[in-house]
């Protein structure tokens, strides 16, 4: 329960900064992806610029978290799926100006049409998993595990 409440609090801060940057507005994302405004890129870059060295430092100190044991940063080696999945994702991002973060934050603002890409994302997850489970020998549960860490 302590973990859940902590995560809830961090979610409020993240959701606030995210929405206050205008990321839950189609016009902002569209102008970002049309290279008309730099603000959203600066938000993302400065977030990484703060988090990367801090996490690096905590990792070197073998930081023990109060709620989840010793801190272990998750990393993935580049694979084909990062590029292929990335292309599919990028196309969806371009046409809708939405990503999994913009959808709930748009809904929270009262954007009724955001329900449509929300249903689409769920359909996309089922579509992907259905294809993987029917075409490869891979254990579908293994895919879930990879995802659950990201």
């Amino acid at each position, binding site marked *: 329960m302590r*973990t*859940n409440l902590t995560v*809830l609090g*961090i*979610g409020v801060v*993240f*959701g606030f*900064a*995210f*929405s*206050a940057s205008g990321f839950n507005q189609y*016009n902002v994302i569209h102008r970002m*992806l*049309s290279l008309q405004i730099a603000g*959203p890129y*600066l*938000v*993302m870059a*400065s*977030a*990484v*610029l703060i*988090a990367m060295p801090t996490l*690096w430092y905590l990792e070197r100190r073998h930081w023990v978290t109060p*709620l*989840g044991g010793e*801190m272990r940063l*998750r*990393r993935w080696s580049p694979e084909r799926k*990062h*590029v292929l999945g*990335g292309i*599919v*994702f990028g196309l*969806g*991002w*371009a*046409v*809708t100006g939405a*990503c*999994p*973060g913009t959808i709930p*934050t*748009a809904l929270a*603002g*009262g*954007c009724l049409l*955001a329900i*449509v*890409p929300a249903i*689409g*994302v*769920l*359909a*996309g997850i089922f579509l*992907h998993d259905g294809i993987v489970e029917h075409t490869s020998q891979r254990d579908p549960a293994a895919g*879930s595990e990879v*995802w*659950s860490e*990201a």
Partner: protein
Amino acid sequence: MFHALALPLPWFIAGPLMGLSVVAMYAAGNKHLGICGSFVQFADAARSRPLETWRFWFLGGILGGAALVTLLAGYPQAGINYGTLSRNLPLNALIPFLFVGGVLIGAGARWAGACTSGHGITGCSTRSTGSMVAIATFMVTAVAATLALNAVSGGAV
């Protein structure tokens, strides 16, 4: 109408707040911040797979933070409004357009393992090279597709 908060919040405030959220998630609970994981929870709930409860709480927080911004600053997309896209496309074209886009987002994020937050912000911060490849691909594809759509549609989409 009076608004207590002017948007957008300057990037040098919003960005560090998001960066500190990423740090706090790892430092407090050893968790990799990402939003698409919450969508997977709904999918997994529907097919009776084991759930990670904390992701629902995190999503609840995101909704709360976004609602707070709406309260303080208003929100231009309330109601049946999707910015310039809903001005340029009739509803019967917009809805399938948004649905197909959503499918691409869901399938692509699932395939790539994470989305703009999980790979783009958190993955880059953990120095995950796969995440850096993923976010670079997201960006290049989305910018190229947006510019191409813009050109083909005469700026409509």
